[in-house]
């Protein structure tokens, strides 16, 4: 199988996954704008910054630093293995920053005003400096990338000018990058009390830029290995990968003892990983220095909380392990080990950013923030789009290699390759529009029904029935929304004051059949939302039983009792009062028909019943405290006093004290 066929199969499955994520991302993006931030994300007043800002933007930018680091090594210093990686590095930087900025559009509340910082300045703010540097650097990477793109799109003159100015772009790029990576770190300087002591250090800017440089190089090494794995394994994996289908066991190995020869590009990957490891060793020293100099950090580390565990894991994978691994000779020889080291370092760097941005604030926010489904889908949707753009550009422009040239002029002799297991023709089974549209057909509806917020609304927990303080039930404590701030209700006192037995109906206006004292929480089940109390299924049975209907299945006959016409809907149903004349009392006499389907929220049920009477009596019997909220709502009645009946007097004592 020629090299071209061998590789096209590998990327097909990955592109399918990326297409699926992109379509799901598109649905999530639509829902984000239709329903706004509150309904679609788990962000709230305690956790203002979440997944998009911290993971996509900050760790995304940190991982995409290879643009300026390799630019410096390859373009300014002209070091041998790096100058070949300048173009791929710039592509990764461009796509990385592009994905980050695009994800930001969904995070900020007013995305159509993204350009405001260009016009309204605040030179004291780090975010202002980050905004300017990141946007300018994104433009610079585009300018650096455009010569590769223009190669195929004509405009040779413009291409000439741009490639001549490449040197200048690299230098400006390096300055802008070093600026914004430092200030990305110092963004978090502004929260001394809130960020966890482990991560809040005065040299956070320095830590950010050094770790970013190291992580960026590692990520580029990983991408180079993956590209070779997808498109041309022999370049990095050498002979180990493919020898007539037999995969040799020794991974790499020295060419002296007859093992398979090294891949020609392995030294590039090795150079990248080693350079990254050097930088990360500096980062490690800085981290240790930071621990030594700051006693509260050391205390927090030794406190053994889950933050310190996170800190150790992050330090291990970002700094300690990669540096140690690179020191071992066989690791530097084997492409697999290098890839694992690079992966580990990149993961460590991303984890560090997430630690600082999200986990560091958990203790201060007092709540655990976990991103909502739509946040995850948009995050990975944006990364998938960047991935698809990555595949498109490297397959159609000469970034890693001029594959597209070889593909175009080599009249690829069509080989009818059949998938051995199922004996199905998989060379061109489905490509392009046909394949992508099939993925869209399955993913779009699935994403819609799993992410559509109204479908996900969890029903609020039912309200709690009032607690009787004593056996005779003459004082009740009502804590419907279970927040501990309960209200005291003198049950018997009210009964006597409002006229004995007949007054019960004022509150128990709609009891269950054959029950005179149904508690309010029986129907007003939700604190804020209306509750549909009409139970259709039950009514089928009750009506059939009540009217002794005959027929095969009596329940089926009872439809006619309530619904007149054929189109059975709420509109064509009989009013409740027509059957429940004796055991129901219309609360608002204005419209005789009781609003029978839905009970108002518990909150408004209570307030509409008690407050009118209270405010009116407050005036007539000039007891001003009647219409005050604190008359019913006491805060945190001490536990001990709960059974003690003098509780009411204590409250009044306090008021009279002034």
């Amino acid at each position, binding site marked *: 199988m020629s090299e071209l066929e061998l590789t096209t199969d590998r990327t097909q499955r990955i592109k399918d996954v990326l297409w699926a994520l992109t379509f799901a991302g598109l649905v999530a993006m639509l829902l984000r704008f239709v329903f706004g931030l509150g309904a679609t994300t788990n962000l709230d007043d305690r956790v203002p910054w979440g997944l998009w800002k911290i993971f996509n933007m900050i760790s995304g930018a940190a991982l995409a630093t290879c643009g300026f680091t390799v630019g410096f090594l390859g373009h300014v210093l002209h070091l041998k293995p790096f100058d070949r990686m300048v173009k791929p590095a710039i592509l990764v930087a461009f796509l990385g920053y592009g994905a980050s900025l695009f994800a930001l559009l969904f995070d900020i509340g007013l995305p159509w005003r993204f350009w405001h910082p260009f016009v309204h300045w605040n030179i004291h703010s780090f975010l202002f400096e980050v905004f300017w540097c990141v946007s300018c650097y994104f433009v610079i990477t585009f300018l650096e990338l455009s010569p590769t793109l223009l190669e195929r799109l004509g405009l040779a003159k413009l291409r000439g000018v741009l490639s001549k100015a490449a040197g200048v772009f690299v230098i400006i790029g390096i300055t802008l990058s070093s600026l914004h990576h430092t200030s990305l770190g110092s963004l978090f300087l502004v929260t001394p009390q809130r960020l966890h002591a482990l991560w809040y250090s005065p040299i956070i800017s320095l830590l950010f830029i050094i770790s970013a440089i190291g992580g960026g190089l590692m990520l580029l090494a990983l991408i180079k290995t993956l590209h070779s794995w997808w498109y041309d394994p022999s370049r990095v994996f050498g002979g180990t990968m493919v020898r007539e289908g037999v995969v040799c066991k020794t991974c790499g190995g020295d060419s002296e003892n007859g093992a398979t020869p090294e891949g020609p590009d392995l030294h590039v990957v090795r150079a990248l990983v080693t350079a990254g490891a050097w930088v990360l060793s500096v980062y490690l020293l800085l981290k240790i220095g930071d621990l030594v100099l700051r006693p509260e950090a050391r205390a927090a580390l030794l406190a053994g909380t889950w933050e310190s565990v996170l800190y150790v894991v992050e330090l291990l994978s970002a700094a300690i392990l990669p540096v140690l691994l690179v020191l071992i000779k066989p690791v530097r020889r084997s492409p697999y080990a290098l890839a694992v080291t690079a992966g580990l370092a990149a993961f460590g760097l991303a984890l560090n950013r997430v630690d600082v941005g999200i986990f560091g604030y958990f203790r201060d926010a007092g709540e655990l923030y976990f991103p909502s489904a739509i946040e995850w889908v948009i995050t990975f949707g944006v990364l998938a789009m960047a991935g698809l753009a990555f595949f498109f550009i490297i397959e159609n422009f000469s970034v890693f290699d001029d594959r597209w040239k070889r593909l175009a002029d080599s009249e690829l002799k069509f080989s009818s390759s059949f998938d051995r297991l199922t*004996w*199905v023709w998989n060379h*061109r089974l489905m490509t392009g529009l046909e394949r992508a549209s099939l993925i869209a057909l399955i993913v779009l509806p699935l994403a819609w029904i799993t992410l559509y917020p109204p479908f996900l609304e969890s029903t609020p927990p039912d309200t709690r029935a009032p607690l009787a303080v004593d056996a005779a039930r003459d004082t009740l404590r009502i804590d419907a929304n279970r927040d501990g701030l309960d209200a005291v209700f003198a049950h018997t006192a009210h009964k006597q004051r409002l006229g004995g037995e007949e007054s019960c109906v004022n509150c128990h206006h709609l009891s269950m059949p054959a029950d005179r004292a149904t508690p309010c929480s029986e129907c007003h089940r939700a604190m804020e939302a209306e509750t549909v109390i009409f139970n259709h299924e039950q009514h089928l049975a009750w009506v059939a039983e009540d009217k002794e209907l005959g027929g095969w299945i009596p329940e089926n006959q009872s439809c006619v009792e309530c619904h007149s016409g054929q189109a059975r809907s709420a509109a064509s149903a009989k009013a409740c009062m027509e059957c429940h004349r004796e055991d129901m009392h219309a609360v608002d006499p204005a419209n005789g028909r009781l609003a029978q389907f839905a009970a108002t929220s518990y909150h408004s049920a209570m307030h509409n019943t008690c407050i009118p009477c209270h405010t009116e009596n407050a005036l007539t019997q000039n007891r001003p405290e009647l219409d005050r909220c604190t008359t019913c709502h006491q805060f945190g009645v001490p536990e001990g006093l709960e059974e003690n009946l003098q509780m009411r007097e204590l409250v009044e004592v306090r008021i009279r004290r002034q």
Partner: protein
Amino acid sequence: MAETTNSGPAPSAVIDLKSRLPYHIEGNGSEGRVERFLDAFAAVLEHTDYKPLLDSYCRTTNKCNRCSVTCPVYQVTGDPRDVPCYKTTLLLSIYQRYFTLGGWLNARFTPNRFELTEDVIAEMAEVFYRCTACRRCTQECPMGMDHGLITRLGRYILSLTGIAPKALQVSVREQLEGETHNTSKVPATAMLHTLEFLQEEFSDQFGIDLDVPVDKKNRDYVFFCAVSDYLMEPDTLLGNLAVLHAAGDWDRWTIGTGNFDGINYGLFYSDWHLERIIKQLVGEVDRLGGKNILIGECGHASRSAHDFVPVFGGAQTRPVVSFIEYTLDCLRRGKIKLNPDIITEKVTYHDPCNMSRGGWIVNQPREILKSFVKDYVEMTPHGRNNYCCGGGGGLVSIDEIHDFRMKVGGKTKADQIAATGAQICIAPCANCKKQLKELVEFYEIPCEVMGLHDLILKAIEIPGGKSAEERKEEAELYAM
């Protein structure tokens, strides 16, 4: 004629061709035939535009069996294998199993019901060559599926696998790679002799000496007819010459010696051959600088030229005129005179499928016939819904299936002709004439099959030549 499925001869009586495949030549032996078939199918899907067609047909086959009602072959045999939809399903299920995602899923997850094997290919080879691709079933299909096209695609893939009728394969090889460049290996000199003989015959009958313009440059018409006409149908050619002479267009046409064969067997079973033959034909016209292509009396020659010269002709595309259209034009302009009281017998007209199915040549011949024939009768059904003579799609040149053509292919047409009771049956197509003559002989129907221009020859009045009356008496004298 009610088209209920009549009780044709019991299927067993019909010749079971599966055991007799010898008329299919084998390119490179029979082993690995399944792989070669799938490779050929994959190559076709790769380089041509059949994939979208097969995709949509896979989905919309409704299996409502309406097409069997109108298929002349199924009418006779009643054999389920002859239902057009069954034939299409054979190829579609191969496509669905081996070339679609559904097939891939089936192969992995279900004990798949369909597997391509040797005898499936053998059955396809037999079934595809029992059908004349007359496309009568397409009009009956509610989904509008073109079974003729699928049959042709099936034959194309079989031919790539090495299975094609020997007769067709040999004649196409001669036409494309032989030195005579025509299907019957008629060298140019032999063609010129025939023309001399025709000139003598013409002067005997009319007393006018003609000189057939051969290889003349920049003429309006370049004449192509089925090369078998030169051998077997002199009267038709005489009729053509008579019309051309009478119309006074003698210096507006020519015959090319480089390639004078309009036959295109590629239309029946191979896109590749179809394209190369069309290119050869158009090349000849370009060589002679002709402005139009004039096709003689041949069904598939006129259709393949009319439909496919624009497709494959490229820059050399020329407008295609059928001789019948030309004759009607001359008649309407009064350039030729036809004596209405020469023909006394009852005449009927058979529509060759390739000309009439597309609605191209349906009313023209009828208008000509009605102008000089007193007793004209129509077959039912006729015109665009006509029945196939049974010899179409190249079957007529395969002699091994003569019995099949007689007992099955042509039986419905034979009943039709017998039903009209006509003495003369006009069939302006070389293949139809050969098939109908065999049919008439096989069923002893008292009817004479001839071309349209044979009749015109009898009735044409050429000023300065003998009148139609005199020629008629001479002919009767000569016949006694």
